[in-house]
């Protein structure tokens, strides 16, 4: 039985600087993992390595037991891993519906087809409508993505990410820039749409992290210094010293 996602001694250098310094991580299928750590610790780089945006300098990344470290983003996506972006990354001049439908097409096997009309793709259109309901944008169906509010764009970002039905979902700071009330609603949305899926998410809000995650991976200075249940991570002396112990994080945890 292999892990849904496994990283073995993954390293990444940019020039002479080592950004990721030997990360080991094994995520079981269906687990929700929050990746936390100070700014510049390498969380986003880690996501970029896993999703194929760039390849690791050394080490292995396995998706359901298959090595993906040398594959392109689209190959990795086709194997069942999908990601969202910290800065909203959608198709601004397409409608909400078209955004989602584009993200659905490959998974339903339409590939580069140009002998079929989109309007005739019953399964794709039904799936897209389903997604619209899931992310609560059904009333904005025909609005151009560029004209959505920020929170709506973030929801669409999640929608595009889950549209292809990937089993492993990576969310890079999904709640960045949202207000408290928006955030709590949004976390519920994320929980709803990722039921039964393996989820990795970068998150800064400790309240959110402890509410959402089955496990927490603490990344500090390019290394995972702890990977355990929220309770164990909170009690971990190394984590307290390196990260949670800092005054800022203290107040965040205290607030929970």
């Amino acid at each position, binding site marked *: 039985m292999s892990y849904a996602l496994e990283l073995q001694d993954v390293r990444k250098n940019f020039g002479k600087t080592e950004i990721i310094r030997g990360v080991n991580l094994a995520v079981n299928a269906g687990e929700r993992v929050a990746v936390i750590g100070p700014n510049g610790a390498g969380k986003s780089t880690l996501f970029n390595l896993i999703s194929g945006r760039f390849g690791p300098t050394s080490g292995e990344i396995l998706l359901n037991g298959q090595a993906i470290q040398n594959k392109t983003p689209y190959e990795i996506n086709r194997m069942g891993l999908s*990601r969202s972006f910290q800065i909203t990354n959608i198709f601004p*001049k397409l409608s909400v519906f078209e955004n989602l*439908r584009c993200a659905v097409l*490959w998974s339903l096997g339409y590939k*580069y087809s140009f002998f079929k009309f989109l309007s005739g793709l019953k399964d794709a259109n039904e799936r897209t409508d389903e997604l619209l309901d899931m992310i609560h944008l059904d009333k904005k169906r025909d609005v151009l993505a560029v004209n959505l509010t920020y929170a709506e764009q973030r929801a669409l970002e999640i929608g595009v990410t889950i549209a292809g039905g990937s089993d492993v979902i990576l969310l890079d700071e999904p709640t960045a820039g949202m207000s408290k009330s928006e955030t709590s609603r949004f976390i519920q949305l994320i929980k709803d749409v990722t039921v039964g899926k393996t989820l990795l998410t970068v998150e800064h809000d400790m309240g959110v992290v402890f509410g959402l995650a089955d496990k927490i991976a603490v990344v500090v200075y390019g290394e995972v210094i702890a990977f355990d249940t929220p309770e164990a991570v909170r009690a971990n002396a190394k984590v307290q010293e390196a990260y949670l112990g800092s005054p800022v994080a203290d107040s965040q945890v205290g607030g929970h």
Partner: protein
Amino acid sequence: MAAVYKFKPYNVGRWVIWSLFALVLVASPLVFTNNLSVTMLAQMGIAIIACLSYNMLLGQGGMLSFGHAVYTGLGSYMAIHALNAVSAGQLNIPVSLLPIVGGLTGMGFAILLGWVTTRKSGTTFAMITLGVAELVFAMSLMFSEFFGGEAGVSGNRVAGQPFFGITYGPQIQVYYLIAAYTFVCVALMYAFTQTPLGRILNAVRDNPERVEFIGYNTQRVRYMAFIISGFFAGIAGGLAALNFEIVTAEVVGAARSGAYLLFTFLGGATFFFGPIIGAILMIIAFVLLSELTKAWLLYLGLVFLFMVMYAPGGIASLIMMNLRVAMFGKLRQIWASYLGLGVTAIVMLAGAGAMIEMVYHLQLNSALGDTVKFMGATLNTKSLDSWFGSAFVMLTGLGLFELARRQFARDWSEIQTDIEKEIKRRETAL
């Protein structure tokens, strides 16, 4: 529930539009019957296919190509060679199908050259297409057996067996051949925009990076679109070969590529029908405007400049914006502003035009005397009165135009806010 509100009598509208388009193609030469008109209509059909195929790259794929004439031009060359082979009895295909030969040629070269160009997007793509275009143009001067050197390659389209008495001798027969191809090609290119690949191409235009993360190889998407575009470009080239019965090296030249870009942009790259408008304008400019004045390229440049600055969506976007205003019943509020804009613009252009014509006259035609006719007036290039008068008219026009423009901008933004409010109101009412 939601589906009830979304109901639109889509297909009816579509049938009406396509029937009208077919009707226009069929009826145009019956309305404009003189020789020049039929010649122009034929050229318009060709240009429509070419510009739409170009817009598959520019408007739909975000690929700014500087070398589209390579694919139309090589299509032309192969078609004329095929035509000559038919004339010589070496090849046995109906003349009606020669544009397909052009299309396959365009496609073949798109497969070959697109492999290189579509590896990159953005500026790099533009640069590579420019390089490829220069390369092909340089080759056209080197290989005179194929490209015909200075004189080009000529042919005679009355070749092979007549098909139901159609010989393609008379221009009108060629027009209807072109019209038929135009209709089919436009329909096919529109259909393409409604397919999975067509939509993903839009996604690649908007945000190539994201497309990679929803399972698509953006290079592959661009490459396939490039090949399909090359096919239609080649058909346009093949039709041009039949229409003119001569193909010279300029058909693969940079000027031709530039014209496709310019007029596709003028017509409007963001809407499917934009390039059709652009293509019609292209032929009007090339055939009529160039007859009217020697300075036509300068005027064209000015128009292009203004469009890029003030209406980057081209004429199509202007039409669509005003349709929106009309749909909300607000066109009444703004027609006076439009009138003001129009009249002051004409005054300004009259002044500027007079000066431009005088400059051109001094440079090119001074041997013919000092006077030049412009819009019914006689101007003397050696008299200060003419210069001051023109400058005065132009500056007055410019001043008034600026005033009218400000008024228009106020009215326009007011209307847009009203419309936004109305949309919000309707949304909440839903």
